[in-house]
């Protein structure tokens, strides 16, 4: 069975600083996708960034970037220049690139941003 683990239930960061959220996963698949979702207090889950397992290059979206270590099955999210609006629950998620498989979420990390 596939599992996704986020070992940090809560993190805090000072505004304008950088923070890294950790995620590890367990799978026997070689072709899959990884995602980070953000869920602000308004509760809509928003896709922040995605990574394709067969791409070695780490994905980047503006202030958000990932450190994808396929052999170590690690997929961390780095938020640079943190802003108050970044405060939210962040969920790491995994899905194999095969029919019939569902998105598997980690337990989430609550990020607090201090002004």
């Amino acid at each position: 069975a596939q599992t996704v683990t986020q070992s940090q239930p809560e993190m805090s960061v000072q505004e304008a600083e950088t923070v890294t959220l950790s995620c590890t996963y367990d799978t026997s698949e070689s072709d899959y996708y990884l995602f980070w979702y953000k869920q602000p207090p308004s509760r809509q889950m928003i896709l922040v960034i995605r990574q394709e397992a067969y791409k070695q290059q780490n994905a980047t979206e503006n202030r958000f970037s990932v450190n994808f270590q396929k052999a170590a099955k690690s997929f961390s999210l780095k938020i640079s220049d943190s802003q108050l609006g970044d405060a939210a629950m962040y969920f790491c998620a995994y899905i194999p690139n095969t029919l019939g498989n569902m998105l598997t979420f980690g337990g989430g990390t609550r990020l607090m941003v201090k002004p």
Partner: protein
Amino acid sequence: DAMVIQNPRYQVTQFGKPVTLSCSQTLNHNVMYWYQQKSSQAPKLLFHYYDKDFNNEADTPDNFQSRRPNTSFCFLDIRSPGLGDAAMYLCATSRDAAGGMNGYTFGSGTRLTVV
């Protein structure tokens, strides 16, 4: 903008009184999902529809049912809500059953309170 819309945003129901939550999408996606999310936890998949094919998760209680009358709409019926069913219910869609690099698109959720 194409999106996933959930109504109502907040729903209060009485213990044991049937309740229906609705979800619509303008994305023309084939797959629609229902998740239950309790406070500060990861979303838990209840079931999904691939087109008209219904797929129930093994541990989803019989109290939860779903209907998908057409591509755009999907309903979650809770036949006899208990206090433990109070949660946020999230609807999501994906283009196909592989999920793929676009992941899922989520609605804003319906927060259900059982009194």
